[in-house]
């Protein structure tokens, strides 16, 4: 193709998304929102994988396969995560992460 | 039968762990099933341990038997190397036995918040850690098992422990006894272990000098003892000393012990006293002395000083206690002082004394904690001022308490005597090169310690067992020793008497191994 597509443009975009995810993870109180942030981070990882695949020119679509796995596991994670949040909410009438300090002395 | 030789020890170590995992699959509500399962697993472990003891070649007690040596973590040269010799065999059997007895005892005795499954699972994991420590012949493996016992015990104390609130000097807040004790126990031990690990790593790297591959293998390290010398060896010994001394515990690293013992549930106290404390002193015999014999000689007077301080200090502290369990806990400080005094002499007699002292202390103090727990179970208090006339209210329980107290104060003819007597015997003539005057002074102080021991034990008996029961208990019906308690205690009682009358039960296994150890380690000064 001979196109002038720079690898880093994808990677940096992914990094930005990832960092935003981290920020959300740290700052959100609501557990659902925390999960959303995690999803964002996973998306960033997927971008990385696909971009790297394109860069390395693999013929076996390794990056994409990994991304498929990540998407699947992420879906499972969301399912379980929401179920847990639901349970916590039932027991404590709140889904705020910072109130979950049972482990504190 | 070759198969048994290979698998026996690994089974003894990992069967409880596997059993614990399976127990987790049993529904929580089916308590009987869980108990039976735990009993079965620990029972099989004990049977295996007994078979190992029976098939053990007593003629070659100084050699490691049932040995397995497989590559494990190749990158750091850590091997899965296990085996027993005459030194570890009695302790291994003791450990397997005590776990079974604890399972039986806890059949009908549960501290809040109940949950037998959780408790038994922790107990089985603990069993893996304890058995593993006694058979490990690789420092990494040893470290892992040594640390493995921490977690279950932490949870046992923290969850099933004493729920009363307690004011800690220096803190404004009142905290729950169990939480304070559990965290203190954990952090204290971890603090020691950190140094210990440092010592292990130092040994590992140093063992690589001179064109050899660095190794964690204990027998191999013993063979390379010549590599470790001077300040390096001194520091390494010190680091390991910290780790082991906390576990023993030696004065002044003992303060976690009274708290942990007092707060722990009965079975926790028993395991703590009977086995966990032995891990430290065992490590001295297994690791510190053989690998660094020259340094051990430099450290011996220091260890002896701490030991005799511990003996006197523990006994005196006992006299000031008002809580039965705390008293027994402090008595452990004194008794382990004798064990360490024996080790510090670096003689055959002294180290033998330490081993039989460990076994005896495990049997006796384990039983004492059982008794204290059962009394607490019935009176719901451990305050000695409120108890009294126990022998009248519960003749059998009181009788066993009297018997055990006598054993604990070192009555000749019962197990406790030999450890004390031989420790003193050893210190009259320590290893050549150690100051005789110094150790003889230690002997005299230690002998005075036996008097103080008798003092607090008799005093405790008078307070708790004798006299008229206080009016508080008038008209209350007390259930004397029940079936489960009896089954759990009788083996201990029988063993206390048996070892007392015929110490060869223990010493017959250990002597050859100890003699070999001392001769190898100190051939230079023994002139042999």
């Amino acid at each position, binding site marked *: 193709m001979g196109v002038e597509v720079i690898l880093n443009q994808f990677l940096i975009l992914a990094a930005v998304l990832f960092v935003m995810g*981290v920020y959300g*993870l*740290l*700052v959100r109180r609501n557990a659902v929102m925390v999960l959303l942030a995690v999803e964002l981070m996973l998306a960033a990882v997927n971008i990385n994988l696909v971009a790297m695949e394109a860069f390395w020119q693999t013929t076996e679509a390794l990056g994409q396969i990994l991304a498929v796995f990540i998407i699947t596991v992420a879906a499972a994670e969301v399912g379980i995560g929401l179920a847990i949040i639901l349970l916590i909410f039932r027991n404590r009438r709140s889904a705020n992460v*910072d109130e979950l*300090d049972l*482990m*504190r*002395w | 039968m070759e198969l048994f030789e290979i698998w026996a020890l690994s089974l003894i170590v990992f069967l409880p762990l596997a059993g614990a995992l399976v127990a987790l699959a049993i529904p929580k509500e089916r308590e009987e099933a869980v108990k039976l399962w735990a009993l079965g697993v620990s029972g099989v472990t004990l049977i295996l341990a007994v078979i190992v003891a029976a098939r053990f070649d007593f003629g070659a007690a100084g050699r490691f038997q049932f040995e397995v040596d497989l590559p494990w973590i190749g990158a750091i040269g850590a091997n899965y190397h296990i085996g027993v010799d005459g030194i570890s065999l009695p302790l291994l059997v003791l450990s397997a036995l005590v776990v079974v007895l604890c399972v039986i005892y806890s059949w009908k005795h549960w501290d809040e918040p109940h949950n037998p499954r959780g408790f038994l699972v922790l107990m089985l994991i603990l069993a893996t850690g304890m058995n593993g420590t006694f058979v490990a012949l690789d420092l990494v493996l040893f470290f892992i098992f040594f640390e493995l016992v921490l977690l279950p015990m932490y949870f046992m104390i923290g969850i099933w422990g004493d729920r009363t609130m307690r004011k800690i*000097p*220096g*803190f404004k807040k009142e*905290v729950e006894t169990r939480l304070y004790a559990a965290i203190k126990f954990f*952090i*204290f031990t971890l603090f020691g272990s950190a140094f210990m690990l440092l010592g292990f790593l130092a040994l590992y790297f140093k063992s690589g000098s001179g064109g050899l591959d660095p190794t964690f293998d204990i027998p191999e390290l013993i063979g390379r003892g010549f590599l470790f010398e001077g300040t390096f060896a001194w520091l390494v010994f010190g680091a390991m000393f910290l780790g082991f001394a906390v576990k023993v515990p030696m004065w002044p690293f*003992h*303060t976690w012990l009274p708290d942990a013992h007092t707060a722990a549930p009965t079975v926790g106290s028993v395991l703590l006293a009977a086995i966990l404390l032995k891990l430290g002193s065992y490590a001295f015999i297994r690791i510190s002395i053989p690998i660094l014999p020259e340094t051990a000689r430099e450290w011996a007077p220091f260890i002896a000083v701490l030991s005799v301080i511990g003996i006197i*200090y523990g006994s*005196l*502290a*006992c*006299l*000031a*206690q008002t809580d039965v369990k705390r008293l027994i806990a402090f008595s452990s400080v004194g008794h382990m002082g004798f064990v360490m005094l024996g080790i510090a002499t670096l003689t055959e*007699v002294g180290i*033998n*004394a330490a081993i039989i002292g460990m076994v005896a202390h495990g049997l006796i103090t384990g039983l004492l904690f059982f008794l204290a727990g059962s009394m607490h179970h019935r009176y719901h208090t451990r305050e000695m001022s409120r108890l009294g006339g126990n*022998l*009248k209210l519960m003749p059998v329980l009181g009788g066993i308490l009297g018997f055990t107290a006598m054993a604990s104060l070192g*009555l*000749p*003819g019962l197990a406790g005597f030999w450890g004390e*007597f*031989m420790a*003193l*015997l*050893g210190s*009259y003539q320590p290893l050549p090169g150690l100051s005789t005057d110094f150790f003889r002074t230690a*002997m*005299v102080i230690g*002998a*005075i310690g*036996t*008097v103080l021991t*008798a*003092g607090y034990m*008799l*005093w405790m008996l*008078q307070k708790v*067992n*004798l*006299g008229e029961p206080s009016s508080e208990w008038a008209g209350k019906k007390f259930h004397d020793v029940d079936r489960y308690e009896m089954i759990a205690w009788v083996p201990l009682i029988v063993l206390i008497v048996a070892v007392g*009358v*015929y*110490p*060869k039960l223990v*010493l*017959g296994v250990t*002597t050859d191994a100890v*003699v070999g150890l001392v001769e190898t380690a100190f051939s230079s000064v023994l002139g042999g």
Partner: protein
Amino acid sequence: MVNAGLTTIYLAAEEGAIHAGTGGIWSEWAGLMLIGPMLAFLVIVMFGKRMRYQGAEVAIGVMAFNLIWSTVLLVLNMGDEGVLYERSIEIARVGGGLVFELGWMVDGLSIMMYWVVAAVGLAVFVYAHGYMKGEIRVTFFFAALSLFAGSMLVLVGSPNLVQLIIGWEGVGLASYLLIGHYWEDKENSSAAMKAFYTNKVADVGLIIGVIIIGVVLGSFHYWDLAAAAAEHSDLLGPVAVTAAILLFIGAMGKSAQFPFHIWLPDAMAGPTPVSALMHAATMVTAGIYLMARTFPLYQELATAARPWMIAAGTITLFGMGLLALVVDDIKRVLAYSTVSQLGYMMTAVAAGGYTAGLFHLFTHAFFKALLFLGAGSVIHAVHSNNMSDMGGLRHHMPHTYRTFVIGSLALAGIFPLSGFWSKDEILATLGYEGYNLVMWIAVAGAFVTAFYMARAVSLTFFGEYRGHGHPHESPRIMTAPLWALAVPAVIAGLVNIPGLKLPLIGSFTSWLSVRSVSMGDHHAESIDLGLAAAGLAAAVAGLWLGWVAFGPKAAKRRAERDWVEVPGLYPLLRQKYYLDHVALGMVWTIRSPLARAVNWVNDYVIDGVVNMVGALCQGLASLVYRGVDQRGIDGVVHGVSYGASGMGGLLRRIQSGRVQQYAGLLVAGLLLLVVLVLFVL
């Protein structure tokens, strides 16, 4: 016969130069005598309650068996050849060449002890069966009595010092159990504790002494000790005096020598049969036995220790006799009398009178057991220990009265009762060995002895009855043992009349030694009439004075017991020389200020350091936390949890609980690590 060069039986035995039989199966199975009472103890504890006589039958049966067995041994030992046999079973090899063994030994000394324990024990056991009828815990009482006798047999049958310690402390334990039999009263349990504890203190000496001997010789065997002593071994030489004094300290505890005697009078808290057994056969004789057993050590190497021993013995024999003059409790009179007599024995053995000391032990066992059982019979009748509640009992209790008087006369040393002969032997030995001052003190002691016995008999059996209720004679099962003991109390002295060797029986001296070998002590071959007369005169004078002072006529004048109150001396005696105060003061010092100080140090100093480290970490960490996380501070400083949060992941997880905070710090830490790895390292 004058001692001409010492050859101990032990050394001779090793050289095979002795004329002694082995005693055949009676020796080979003599261990049964040691095991029997121990088994009886177990059987009674486990099954006693279901038995018809609550276990008494087992205890008595075993004791009877022992008496028969030991009598056979005694007879075998009387012949021309003695009996010498030993058997040991190794119970442990402990390294350093040392071996622990259990076993039994059959020689003159131990046979004598076997027989005394069995004979006195049987009488006491039978008596106790009557005495304890209707009392609480009879089963356990007999179990403990069996343990008491069994431990004593283990002690005297021991061929080595380690087994000696086992029996030694077993005796202590049994005495603890028996003295504290009525433990509902704190006084009794305290008395039991005092007995056990005083002994335990003295045992430190014994144990260290044994350790020294064992390590130095590489063996705990009496044979080796005696051989080493006879050879003036270079190994043993330098430590001999130390070891000897240490062993003696142990013996002082058991044999109630000044100042370790304080436990014994209090030990009267136990039932009377216990006192009888303890004072005659099983406990207090142990110290004398130990001294006799290790006699070669004192005779040969540790002569420097002997003045100290004689001093202690002399103080005991005179000073403690005086105490018997002022107490009201009849059992305490006898207790102090025992202490005083033990002083005689100890002095004798220490002065070199091996035979003399043991002979007195032998005769004393019978008449003192007799006196205690008689006192028990009286107490049984009047339900009080105090002589001020007695009086005039001779009409009510004829058997008790007669036997008690026989015992008293024997104790006072009146010709020809047993006490006369043994006391005379002691005096003769002291005189021969040149301890003249001690000898005259001993004569004075004989006077005191007679005096307080006359007082006791007068106050108890003569005058008017001062108690309540109607005293009555005790049942046959109790009086029979009294008469049984009265016989040896009268005739036991005949076996050792100087210069007289009875046909068939031989003499006591020959019992104790193995034929043709001298024990190396002095043994009078003829009666020193002057000395005998002096001793007898002192005794008669004491009896007369006691009768005058406390007899019926005096009692009519003054009802109070102690109408002679010597100023200065009387309060001192009443307060038992203030020794109890000293002992209690020492115990209190340890118990209270010292123990509390240690506990305080533990809680506030050592634990304080631990907690302070924790607190410091908290402080540091909370500082860090504030810096990192200005806005997040809730205002409440959970010192502990924040502190831990600074200390690392583990602590944080335990103590803080804010997941996101961890995550943040995780990322930050990761960053730090990466930066560290990339830019710094």
